[in-house]
C-alpha cells in the first residue's frame, strides 16, 4: 500500500484547514507494521480514511499493489488487498450480539458459511470474548467493544489491518495487552498493519514509524495563519 503526496483540505472558520502541507508519502510493504504518529487534530484519522477510500484527497494518489485506487471505494480496495479497518469509535451493530456481528462481517467478506463458525470461535477466544459472545455491544465496556471490532477485523483474516488509535478508549491494562497482540499478529500471521497513534511509546513498538506534522490554516487567499 502506498500514498504519494496526499493532500487533504477542509473548510474551516478561518479559511481552509490543510492537512499534510507538503503531502504525505508513505509505503507499507507486505508484512510490515507501520505506525503513524501525530498529535490530536493533525490528520491521523483523515489519513486512515484516505487509505480506506472513505475520503478523497485533493492532490496525490493512493495505490494498492501498484494499482491506483485514489478514486476507488473501500469495497473495491478490499478486492485488491483484503483489508479490515478498526476505527476510533466502536462500530458493532447494536441490535446484534457479538457473535452475530462477526457472522455478518464474515458474510459480507464472502467467507463460506462452513468456515464462519470456526473463525468466529478462534477470534473470540483470541480476544477473550468467548464468554460474552451472546451479549449485545451496548451493554459492554469500551475496552470490550474495541476488542469486538478487533475480533471482527481479524476473523476476516485480512492481508492489511488498518487501525486508528487502537488504545484510544482502553484502560492501562487493556492497552498493555493490545500492542503485543498486534505485534504477534504481524509476526506470526504475517498481517500487514497500518496503525495511527498519538503515543510515541506505542509507535516505537511498530517496525517502522512515520511522524505527521501539524496542519496549516490558510486564508481564502491561500495565506498561512499563525502556525
Amino acid at each position, binding site marked *: 500500500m502506498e500514498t504519494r503526496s496526499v493532500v487533504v483540505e477542509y473548510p474551516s472558520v478561518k479559511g481552509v484547514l490543510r492537512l499534510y502541507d507538503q503531502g504525505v508519502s508513505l509505503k507499507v510493504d507486505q508484512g510490515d507494521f507501520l505506525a503513524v504518529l501525530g498529535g490530536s487534530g493533525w490528520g491521523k*484519522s483523515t489519513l486512515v*480514511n484516505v487509505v480506506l477510500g*472513505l*475520503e478523497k484527497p485533493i492532490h496525490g494518489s493512493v495505490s494498492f499493489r501498484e494499482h491506483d485506487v485514489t478514486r476507488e*471505494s*473501500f*469495497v473495491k480496495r*478490499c478486492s485488491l488487498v483484503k*483489508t*479490515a*479497518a*478498526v*476505527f*476510533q*469509535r466502536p*462500530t*458493532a*451493530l*447494536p*441490535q446484534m450480539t457479538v457473535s452475530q*456481528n462477526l457472522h*455478518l*462481517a464474515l458474510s*459480507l*467478506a464472502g467467507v463460506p458459511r462452513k468456515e464462519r463458525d470456526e473463525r468466529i470461535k478462534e477470534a473470540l477466544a483470541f480476544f477473550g470474548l468467548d464468554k460474552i459472545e451472546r451479549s449485545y455491544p451496548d451493554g459492554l465496556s469500551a475496552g470490550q467493544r474495541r476488542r469486538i*471490532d478487533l475480533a*471482527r477485523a481479524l476473523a*476476516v483474516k485480512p492481508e492489511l489491518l488498518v487501525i*486508528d488509535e487502537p488504545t*484510544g*478508549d482502553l484502560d492501562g491494562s487493556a492497552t498493555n495487552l493490545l500492542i503485543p497482540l498486534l505485534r504477534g499478529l504481524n509476526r506470526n500471521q504475517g498481517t500487514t498493519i497500518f496503525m495511527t497513534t498519538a503515543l510515541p511509546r506505542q509507535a516505537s513498538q511498530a517496525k517502522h514509524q512515520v511522524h505527521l506534522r501539524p496542519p496549516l490554516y490558510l486564508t481564502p487567499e491561500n495565506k498561512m495563519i499563525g502556525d
Partner: protein
Amino acid sequence: MEKPSWTPIVLSGAIPREATDLLALLVMGIVALEASLAPVAPTVFSSRLWLSLLVVPPTCALASISTTTRRTREELALFAYGGPGWQILLRYFIRGAIIALVAFSPVLLQGFLRTTSILELVTTAVVLLFAGGLFYSMPSLRRIRSSSFVENYKS
C-alpha cells in the same frame, strides 16, 4: 420582581422548523385536505386512493429520519464490515416498500375483492413499492454521501 420572558421558549424551539416537523405537517395536511375535499367534490374525489398515496413519501421519509442516530451507527458498522453502499440502501428500500405495502394492504385487498382491473391494482402496488422504498432510503443516501459521514468514525 422580574417577569419570566416567553422569548427563550420561542427561540429554543417552540415553533416547528425541523425536517421531521415539516414532514409530520405534510402528512397531516394531506389527510386533512382529503377529508375536507371529499364531501365538497365527491365526483372528483370519488377515487380518493391517489390522494391517499401522497402520504406515502413524507411518512416513509419521516420514519427514516426519526432514528438518524441509530441508523448512522448501523451504516458506519456496515461500511466498516466492508458492506457496499448499494446493499445498505437496498435494505432501506425493501424496508420502506414493505411498510407502504402493508399499510395499504386493506386498499389493495378491497380492490382485489371488488375485481378492479388487475392492471390498476398492479400499478398501485408498484407505485406504493417504489414510493415507499425510495423515500425511505433517500435520507440514508443523503447521509452516506455527506462529507461529514466519515467524521463519525472519529471519537
